[in-house]
């Protein structure tokens, strides 16, 4: 099952207009992140899927059911698409109470539609104490939680989120992000998630559609795209690096470390996070700039993770940096080093090396990762 999207649209005229020509397939259920710099057309794609924008040409089909097909003259209006949308600015109805906002979609949902009930959603998002209030009296984080609940309660077939955390400050984002993860797990719905924040992708997304200037430059599982060096939108970032799926194995309070098993085999040592129960699945981004390389096993070092690996690729990243792709067993890694290091160590594909990552550089509990 999948969400198929193919759109062609033009804004404005002539050379200074913006052209959207994007097509991708998002697996369902699952979270697909539409990722790219602002102005790349990701919100436009979302609006077209929701039915709020009528593209010149295109087809949008959810599990084979077309809600838009310009070739066959199909355009299902937004009120009959059953796409729950969470907007960046919340868009709560200011004249209605929080409860009336939450029930707005629920009252209009088709009779047979299934989904979590009112009380379940209220408890899930922790908005029980706000029900009688008006949206004007809520904080930014509270507003977005109500907006999430309102969309979920409309019993949608698909959830669309348009940068739901972008309007919040850092503290509010940290407050809302766990609710998003809980909602994703509880809803069991396909979610299309528009963002330009990589930590949200790490915490929430299963697959990634990379957009640049109205075009899809890459799509696939988040982990697979995280180690590609040919996608400047991702690899050019300071926080670029391999995103690894892992599971909490055990805590070692004496050493101050938490042991993680990697999905591809092997172990990682991370700073102690005793609140994560063993067996909890999560993801860790191993930033390329935090991965050092050695051709001999180092002794007497503070570095906790020393992983025997093989160099699979060496590629210049600008004039002063080089990307070294590695494979540690089944686990791909990415390292960013200076050209000087490449020359001194003679780094080339096939060379066995030791990848070294400080435990402290990993952040399995913060915004850098979330539960899978």
């Amino acid at each position, binding site marked *: 099952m999948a969400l198929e999207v193919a759109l062609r649209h033009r804004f404005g005229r002539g050379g200074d207009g913006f052209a959207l020509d994007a097509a991708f397939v998002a697996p369902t259920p699952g979270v697909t992140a539409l990722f790219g710099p602002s102005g790349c057309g990701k919100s436009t794609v979302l609006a077209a899927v929701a039915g709020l924008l009528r593209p010149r040409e295109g087809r949008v089909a959810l599990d084979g059911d077309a809600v838009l097909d310009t070739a066959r003259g199909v355009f299902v209006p937004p009120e009959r698409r059953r796409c729950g949308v969470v907007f960046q600015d919340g*868009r709560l109805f200011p004249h209605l109470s929080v409860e009336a906002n939450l029930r707005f*979609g629920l009252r209009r949902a088709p009779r047979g539609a299934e989904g979590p009930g009112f009380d379940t959603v209220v408890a899930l998002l922790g908005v029980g104490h706000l029900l009688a209030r*008006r949206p004007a009296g809520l904080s930014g984080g509270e507003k977005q939680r109500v907006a999430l609940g309102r969309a979920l309660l409309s019993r949608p077939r698909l959830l669309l989120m348009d940068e739901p955390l972008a309007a919040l400050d850092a503290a509010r984002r940290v407050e809302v992000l766990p609710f998003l993860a809980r909602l994703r797990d509880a809803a069991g719905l396909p979610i299309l998630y528009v963002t330009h924040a990589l930590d949200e992708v790490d915490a929430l997304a299963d697959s990634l559609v990379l957009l640049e200037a109205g075009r899809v430059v890459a799509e696939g599982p988040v982990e697979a795209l995280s180690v590609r060096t040919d996608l400047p939108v991702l690899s050019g970032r300071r926080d670029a690096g391999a995103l690894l799926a892992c599971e909490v194995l055990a805590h070692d309070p004496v050493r101050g470390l938490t042991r993680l098993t990697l999905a591809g085999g092997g172990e990682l040592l991370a700073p102690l996070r005793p609140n994560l129960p063993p067996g909890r699945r999560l993801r860790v981004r191993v930033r390329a700039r935090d991965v050092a390389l050695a051709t001999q096993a180092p002794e007497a070092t503070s570095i906790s993770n020393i992983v025997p690996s093989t160099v699979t690729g060496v590629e210049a990243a600008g004039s002063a940096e080089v990307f070294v792709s590695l494979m540690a067993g089944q686990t791909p890694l990415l390292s960013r080093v200076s050209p000087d290091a490449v020359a001194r160590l003679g780094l080339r594909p096939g060379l066995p090396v030791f990848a070294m990552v400080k435990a402290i550089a990993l952040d399995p509990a913060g915004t850098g990762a979330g539960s899978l």
Partner: protein
Amino acid sequence: MTDAWLAPEEWSAVRLSLEVAARSVAVSLAPAVLAAVLLSRGRFPGRTLLDALVHLPLVVPPVVVGWGLLMLFGVRGPVGSLLNDWFGVRLVFTTEGAALATAVMSFPLIVRAVRLGLDGVDPGLEAAAGTLGAGRLDRFFVVTLPLMSPGILAGAVTAFAAGLGEFGAVITFASNIPGETQTLPLAIYSATQTPGGEAAAGRLALVSFGLAVSGLLLAELIARRMGRLLGRGAG
């Protein structure tokens, strides 16, 4: 304001003015909201023409508007003769006629206020309502209409206050019949034309002034209340 202070026929002019203004607002409010929505959101041929037509009473002399109504709704006019033959309704020289003339004159005032209210409504909220399963009419009545209501109320109050003082169109279409179509301004005019009527004119002018100021205060009060009620989302 007491009967002892105002003469009975003066008191009846005040009552009649209030009645005519209230009926004019009642008649024109719904069409004005419709016109405002069409002009603000609609994309149809003849939109500019409708816009001009709605605003015509603002620029055309009121007497000309009254004359137009006389031509249209007079007993021999195309609409007036139908009303008379089919329903036995006669508008010229009646209170209803005075209300109609007032309604036509204040129509653009309401439309303008309603449009201001409508323009303050975030279309994003309507889009959000759509994604939540609300159809076109549902969206309008549950989201747009409540959010534009401060504009509607402002328009109604303004039209009511302006309607109390409508002169030219009323006297042309409905004439100046005491107890029937002689509203406050007409009564003031008549008093000034009558020898020794200065005192009566003064009293009625004072009442006119008082009503206008009360109307303004009421409008301000309502606007504040509504703003709070709507969470300052509009208005």
